[in-house]
């Protein structure tokens, strides 16, 4: 019964029924319209090709979202191979013998002027953070995004991206240092 229902679903019906839901999910992990559209297209294509295998084991929505999640993971994994940009890491810390590990004066965290009660609810601030994430080097962006996607474990990131756990910490740390500076520049200027 479930099976025959899946077979008669047309592309129109699928897109109309699940399109918004999948698009919303993709956007919350990618923040990029074109990219979300591309992965949605790939998801529907893969689902359409594989609909014989579906056999109504889970509900259709769950099945489609699991394909989309896989596509998002694949996207970030491919991105993570792009390492050129991270080779010239510009540390905000002094690395000479005497001041070793101290903040460089001009790049040290300033006191943020926070008069509003809750910045995290400010739509503008949210968008600044999204923008700053998009500026991260590809490899960092991949590790950072996957780490903040619900249900993705650190082990999974290590395995799939071929990064050691201690390296994950370094990447997360450097990403956050960069985000901090980016926010200071764009929001608290």
């Amino acid at each position, binding site marked *: 019964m479930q099976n025959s229902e899946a077979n008669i679903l047309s592309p*129109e019906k699928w897109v109309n029924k699940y399109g918004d*839901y999948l698009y919303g999910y993709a956007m*919350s*992990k990618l923040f990029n319209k074109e990219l979300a559209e591309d992965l949605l297209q790939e998801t529907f294509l893969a689902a359409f090709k594989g609909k014989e295998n579906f056999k109504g084991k889970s509900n259709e929505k769950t099945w489609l979202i699991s394909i989309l999640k896989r596509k998002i993971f694949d996207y970030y994994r491919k991105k993570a191979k792009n390492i050129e940009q991270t080779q010239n890491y510009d540390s905000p810390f002094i690395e000479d013998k005497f001041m070793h590990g101290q903040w460089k004066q001009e790049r040290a*965290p300033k006191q943020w002027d926070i008069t509003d009660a809750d910045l995290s*609810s400010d739509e503008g601030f949210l968008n600044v953070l999204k923008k700053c994430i998009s500026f991260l080097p590809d490899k960092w962006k991949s590790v950072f995004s996957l780490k903040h996607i619900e249900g993705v474990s650190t082990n999974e990131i290590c395995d799939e991206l071929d990064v050691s756990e201690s390296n994950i910490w370094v990447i997360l740390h450097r990403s956050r240092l960069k985000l901090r500076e980016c926010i200071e520049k764009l929001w608290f200027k």
Partner: protein
Amino acid sequence: MMMKMMLNCRQASLLVDKKEYVELSTKEKMDLKMHLSTCKYCRNYSAQSKIINKTLIKVFKFNELELKLSNDQKQKLINSIK
């Protein structure tokens, strides 16, 4: 000697970030507390890290009813699957 035992800012800020993901060991907590008590910049960093984390949760959160595909986007998708 004392200086050697204390964290520098790079090490302290790494612990600040690590704390957002995992529980620190007792020693790490003590070292960090000590550093923060003497370093204004790292205190700023710590306060900012909390704000960033709170916002990150919202950034990656999936809100089901928030977004809709436009009719053009839908048509494009349908055409590409056919």
